[in-house]
Structure formats: structure tokens, C-alpha cells
């Protein structure tokens, strides 16, 4: 029997006075990691809260592990571990208090695994939450989410504000959690390095819209930076996949997506010389997408 998709969002919209999440389609199968990338205020947290059933969409449908959200949220949340950067534990209580509480709710709670996680993440369960640093608090919520052995992990900016060492610990545990091949992760961040490291699929979200969504390899493979010389000042060919173009004297730097090997020839035919074709990092793609989306919005506003 086919497993239901980990997450399936179709035409999801949500309107606030100063923000509009528009017509979001997002889906990925179980056993994979979806990285949700976007700048602050893009709509990542809103989308994640809708996936968790904490916010109801104005239109569209959301299914999580086959359960309709928010209607079937109790059944769905029995199989979801959620960690958010702004999620807090009870300051006056210890980590052990929280572990006891979560253990009392989830039959799937694995005490041995919880102890392993505490050791690996260097946490003392007798310590009160108010004495923990931000990084330790994130690690504590990670223990609470992982030790219940959920099918789906939803991480909303878990690495924000962490120092590099703690960030690595958190990412390593997320990777370890994927040892179970049916476990899935939805992971949001504006840190593209983190997303690039663990994701199978990447979705870029900007201004409440999904700008791009695809397999990571295809995604990285589809973007290129072309360095061109243009001694006769010829116009650039009118190609729809040019996302960014910068001129410095006779030198042009052009960023394209949906790259294929025939593309350089089109520039050559237009009278330009292609001097280099370079791959982009996810960070560079992210910046290009944001700048391109911003320019599109400004053009729409101007017209």
C-alpha cells in the first residue's frame, strides 16, 4: 500500500491585514526532507503553523500524513514532532518535568532514546529551563520532539540564533533522525547552508508566494552564472530564464535558471562571448530569487 504524502498543501491562502499567503502548493513524500527557504516575513512560519493546525487557512486544503488539517489535527499531531525557534518551555520547571509530561501523552515515547539524546546534546534533565541558554532550550525541545519518535518532524527556524557548534549539534540530530527511512522533515530557515545540507527538496517562499519548488539536485543544477564579454555593446538576448543581469563596462554577469547546455550558444549568437559558466550556491540562488521577486513586485506596483 502506498504511504500518504508527508505533507500536501493545495491552493492554501491566508490573509492578514498586512500579509497575504497566496495559493501555496507544496507536497513531498514520506522519508524525505523539504527545506523551506525565505527571508523574514515571507510566510514560512504561517505556513508551518497551518501545517500544524494552529492556524486555519482561508482557502485551500492541507493534508498531513493523510490527515486533513486542522480538522484531524489530533490524529495528525500524534505523529508530528514540532520545534519552533519561538517555542518556549515552562521556565520554572526542569527538563525532566517536560519529559514526564510528554511521556504521559505519547505511547511511542522512547525513554532510552531520550537518555541518549540528553547525553549527546549535553543536557542535564534536572536543570530548570530558566537556567538554560537559548541553544540548550532549542536542544531540550528537540529531545522532546524526537524521543516520541514521530513520523514527521516540523522545524520552524530551529537553528536561528544558535552558535555554530550548537547549530551543528542540532543539524546532526536532525540527520540522525532520518535514519528511519519513513521519517520526514519539513524544515524552514533563512540559513541556506543548513537547508542545503539536509534537504531533498527545496521550496523558496517570498512575499507569501511559493517562488520555486523542486528537488535539490535539479534546483542547484538548474541555476548558473554566466560571465560574458560584450565589446560591441550588443543587447542581451530576450530569454525568459534570465533572472539577473549586471553590467560592468564590457563585462556582463548574467544569472539564469532552467539552464541547459544550449544556452551559452544563444548568447554567442547574439554577439556576446561566454567566458565562464559557474554553478551557484543555494545562498546565491536565494538572493537572486529574492531580488528578482522584489523587482517583479515593484514593477507590478509601478504599473
Amino acid at each position, binding site marked *: 500500500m502506498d504511504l500518504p504524502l508527508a505533507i500536501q498543501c493545495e491552493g492554501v491562502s491566508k490573509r492578514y491585514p498586512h500579509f497575504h499567503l497566496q495559493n501555496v502548493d507544496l507536497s513531498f513524500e514520506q522519508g524525505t526532507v523539504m527545506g523551506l527557504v525565505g527571508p523574514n516575513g515571507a510566510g514560512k512560519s504561517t505556513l508551518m*503553523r497551518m501545517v*500544524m*493546525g*494552529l*492556524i*486555519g487557512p482561508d482557502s485551500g486544503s492541507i493534508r498531513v500524513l493523510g490527515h486533513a488539517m*486542522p480538522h484531524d*489535527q*489530533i*490524529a495528525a*499531531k*500524534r505523529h*508530528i*514532532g*514540532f520545534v*519552533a525557534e*519561538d*517555542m*518556549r*518551555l*515552562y*521556565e*520554572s*520547571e526542569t527538563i525532566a*518535568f517536560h519529559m514526564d*509530561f*510528554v511521556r*504521559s*501523552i505519547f*505511547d511511542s515515547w522512547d525513554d532510552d532514546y531520550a537518555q541518549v539524546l540528553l547525553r549527546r546534546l549535553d543536557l542535564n534533565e534536572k536543570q530548570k529551563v530558566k537556567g538554560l541558554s537559548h541553544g540548550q532550550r532549542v536542544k531540550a*525541545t528537540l529531545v*522532546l*520532539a524526537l524521543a516520541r519518535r514521530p513520523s514527521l518532524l516540523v522545524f520552524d527556524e530551529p537553528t536561528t540564533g544558535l552558535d555554530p557548534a550548537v547549530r551543528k549539534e542540532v543539524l546532526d540530530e536532525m540527520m540522525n533522525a532520518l535514519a528511519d527511512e519513513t521519517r520526514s522533515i519539513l524544515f524552514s530557515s533563512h540559513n541556506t547552508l543548513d537547508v542545503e545540507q539536509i534537504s531533498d527538496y527545496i521550496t523558496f517562499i517570498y512575499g507569501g508566494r511559493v517562488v520555486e519548488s523542486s528537488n535539490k539536485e535539479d534546483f542547484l543544477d538548474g541555476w548558473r552564472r554566466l560571465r560574458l564579454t560584450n565589446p560591441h555593446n550588443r543587447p542581451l538576448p530576450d530569454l525568459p530564464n534570465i533572472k539577473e543581469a549586471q553590467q560592468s563596462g564590457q563585462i556582463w554577469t548574467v544569472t539564469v535558471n532552467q539552464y541547459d547546455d544550449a544556452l551559452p550558444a544563444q548568447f554567442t549568437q547574439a554577439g556576446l562571448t561566454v567566458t565562464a559558466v559557474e554553478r551557484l550556491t543555494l545562498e546565491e540562488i536565494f538572493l537572486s530569487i529574492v531580488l528578482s521577486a522584489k523587482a517583479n513586485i515593484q514593477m507590478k506596483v509601478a504599473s
Partner: protein
Amino acid sequence: MSTSIVPQLVGKDLRLLSRIILTFVVVSLIFIAILAAIWDHVPAVVQGNFGFILLIGPAGTCGIVMLMKTNVLEKEKSTQAFIMSLPVTVKEFTRAKLWVNLPVFGLFWAAISAVAFYFAFARGLFPLGGVPFVTMVFLGGFVAYTCILAVSLVSQNLGMTVLCIALFEMATSGYLWAIAFLNPISQHIWGAVAVWNPTAVGIVAAQLLVAVSVIVVTLLVQNTKRDFI
């Protein structure tokens, strides 16, 4: 497993509140002891006013602190995101909060009311004719508490809740003064026997009805919420 986690949520809040509840119970016991010790050594007017303040002070404050901690600070301190990430709906979350606050405050208030009745009537401070009115006073306090609890749950806003406390404090005083001057009540207050005439019974029934209605409306309003973070 699809059973409700309301009992676990209630247990968690009771554990979080245990020190607060214990503190206020101890303070109440100390105040009752003080009241008993000075009872025969101060004038009746001092016994009445001082006793009323000493008895309702800790219970009322305990109720307010509990609802602030469980309802308002849950949102303000972002622990609500943690709770709502668990298999629970807004409806169940609301039920759990009601199950924590109402029984604890209700028991505390009932115990304090019983002590107040003992000092006021069993020890002869007031004649028995005052029983219906004093019942209305303590029931009025409980109704005001359910209203404040409802506002704290629905709004989860510190400002709104504090404003509500101030308003209900004034409104309850005004309402009790109005009742005290109602002829069918006032003419029996200083009488030797408690008279449960239709007005007295009607007011008590209306108070109970308001308390129940406020709780039902709170559940209905919470059920309509689509966004809960």
C-alpha cells in the same frame, strides 16, 4: 490511541500551580487563625470588615494568579506553541483550563464561604436573616470570577484581563449594594430567621445561571477560533 489528553493537561497545570495554591491555602489558614484569635477582642464592625477582607483576600488573589498563569502567561510566554504542538485542539485546551481553574477556585471559595458563614452566623456576628444576602455576596464573587476567567481564556491578553478585573470589582460592589437596597431583601437582612422569598431565590438562581452561561459561551466562542497562536 485517540484518547483525549485533557487529563494530562490538567495534571500539568496543577503541578505548575501546586506551590501557588499551597501558599495561598497556608496564608488563608493563618488569616483564619488570626481572625479566631482576635474575634472576641475587637468590636463587631471590625470583626465584619476585617474578617471579610482576611477571608476573601487570599482566595480571590489565588484565583486571579491561577488564571493569569494558566491562561494569559501561557500565550505571553510562548509556552502555548509547545502545548498546541501536542495532540490537542482549541476546544480541549479550553476544557483543560476550565477543569483546572474552576474546581480549584470553586473549592477554595466554597471553603472560605463556609468559614465566613461560621464566623458571621454560628458565632452570632449577624442575625440569621442575613444568610440569603451573604449567600448572594459569595455567589456574586464566584460569578465575577467566572467572567474574568472567560475573558482571560478568550482574549489571553494581560491588559484585557486586568481591565476586566477592575471593572468586575466595581460592578460586583455596585450590584451587591443594589441588591442590599432591594426591599424584599433589605427588609429581612437584620431579621432573626433566613427568609428565602422568591426575590432571594430568583437572584441566587440568576447568579448560578449567569455562571453556567458564561462557561458555555466561553466554550462556544473558543470552538469558533481558527487561529490559536
